[in-house]
């Protein structure tokens, strides 16, 4: 029977990696994920986790070491945040295009400058195109559950792609929450052993990472894209199986009072919990509002988004990252693009908020929704609005 413990989310992530019996952990400290790699170090030092713990000298080397370990067939895990994620940027593309099922927890952190250790999604948005499966999480239980799912999804022979689990830095990573930690035997049943089809092995020599001249590169990229898109089926199946075993079901997005709502708010990450309170308050006041919580970021859930918003008149997207000089909200841009060809679609309004760890209270969300309704009626000269910035 799974035990429910009060545990810091970072520590719980390390415990999840231990439950998954990872083989190799590449570790480099960066706020606010450091507790993850610290706890993993302690687990290894105490013999509670039999893994090779590689304290590398930078995040670039952390992901690189993961490449090597995964290529020989070892189950591999690492964690990073913000600048660290950026430093390993080029290596991320390698992991996905070379089809190495590395699992990484990212404690989303704002990007410098100015230096900020606090949470927002700018680091995640900067790696949209890297070809990883990416899942956002809302609370500690979701993080733990999805770290476990990540190994199973990544290593599935139909997928063999790396998976990023995004959790808000500090707002999730440092929270002590009540979390059900599954039993090791249950996890062993859920996650089969990792078998790369062509590992580096002298008994069957293969060459990984050849260079692609122009007449091959496009074909290689198409193969990669087809595979990432097809991974969605495996993700849905995995979440379904997880639900049957553990009682908690996950979906590409969660709808909260959205079926009949005229006005919808869309959030990602821990803001979703706060936003729910705002929705509750506003509905008690008779306002017809609802919430969409986006969980599956890559591969993008086109079908589910289009289905969820088709009856709404206004969709307000709250981005926790800013794409400078462009349409503003990265998530909003993608959603607008997904809806563009639909006959019936809501007006999509873009808000940016919560940057660099700035909090948004449930009252703040009410203000965003009200302002979003206003903009949908009067229009706006701006492409997007930044919420909560002192003028």
């Amino acid at each position, binding site marked *: 029977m799974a035990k429910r413990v009060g545990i810091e989310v970072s520590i719980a992530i390390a415990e999840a990696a231990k439950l998954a019996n990872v083989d190799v952990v590449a570790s480099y400290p960066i706020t606010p994920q450091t507790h993850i790699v610290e706890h993993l170090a302690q687990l290894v030092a105490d013999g509670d986790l039999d893994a090779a713990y590689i304290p590398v000298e930078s995040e670039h080397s952390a992901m690189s070491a993961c490449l090597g370990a995964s290529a020989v067939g070892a189950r591999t895990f690492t964690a990073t945040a913000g600048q660290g994620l950026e430093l390993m940027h080029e290596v991320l593309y390698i992991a996905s295009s*070379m089809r190495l099922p590395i699992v990484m927890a990212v404690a989303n952190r704002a990007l410098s400058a100015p230096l900020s250790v606090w949470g927002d999604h700018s680091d995640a948005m900067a790696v949209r195109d890297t070809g990883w499966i990416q899942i956002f999480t809302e609370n500690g239980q979701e993080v733990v559950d999805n770290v476990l799912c990540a190994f199973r999804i990544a290593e599935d022979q139909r997928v*063999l792609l790396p998976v990023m689990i995004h959790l808000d830095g500090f707002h999730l990573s440092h929270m002590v929450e009540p979390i059900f930690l599954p039993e090791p035997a249950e996890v062993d049943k859920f996650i089969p052993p990792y078998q790369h089809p062509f590992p580096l092995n002298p008994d069957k*020599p*293969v060459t990984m990472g050849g260079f692609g001249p122009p007449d*091959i590169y*496009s074909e*290689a990229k198409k*193969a990669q894209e087809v595979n990432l898109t097809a991974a969605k089926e495996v993700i849905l199946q995995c979440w379904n199986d997880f639900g049957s075993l553990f009682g908690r079901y996950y979906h590409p997005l969660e709808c909260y009072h959205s079926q009949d709502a005229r006005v919808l708010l869309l959030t990602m990450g821990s803001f979703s919990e706060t936003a729910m309170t705002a929705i509750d308050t506003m509905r008690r006041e008779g306002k017809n509002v609802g919430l969409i919580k986006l969980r599956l970021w890559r591969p993008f859930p086109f079908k589910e988004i289009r289905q969820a918003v088709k009856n709404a008149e206004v969709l307000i997207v709250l981005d926790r990252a800013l794409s400078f000089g462009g349409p503003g909200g990265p998530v909003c841009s993608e959603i607008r693009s997904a809806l563009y060809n639909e006959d019936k679609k809501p007006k999509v309004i873009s808000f940016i908020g919560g940057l660099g760890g700035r909090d948004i209270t449930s009252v703040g969300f009410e203000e965003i929704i009200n302002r979003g309704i206003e903009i949908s009626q009067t229009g706006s000269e701006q492409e997007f609005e930044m919420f909560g910035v002192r003028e």
Partner: protein
Amino acid sequence: MTKPEGMLTWKDLQIGSIVTEPGSASQYQTGDWRSQRPIYDSSKCIKCGICYIFCPEGCIEQNDEGYFEANLFYCKGCGICARECWTQAVTMVEEEE
């Protein structure tokens, strides 16, 4: 790979563009590159193998009698074997074609 490179479809590629046939590049005829070729005089060859050791292509082979000779399918005509041969059993001549 049986198809020429320019005709491979995305489905033909192995996962992650991994190449599973070791040494498959050995079908590439680097011998086309050369502008001069080595001529081996077996009467001077002492079968020491130094040409074999120093060939960057690794294309010098020992025939049934034990004399060394370059495999012209690969030989790029660098002339190292001629230069290093202790008994000067190898001379470089202009490639006719």
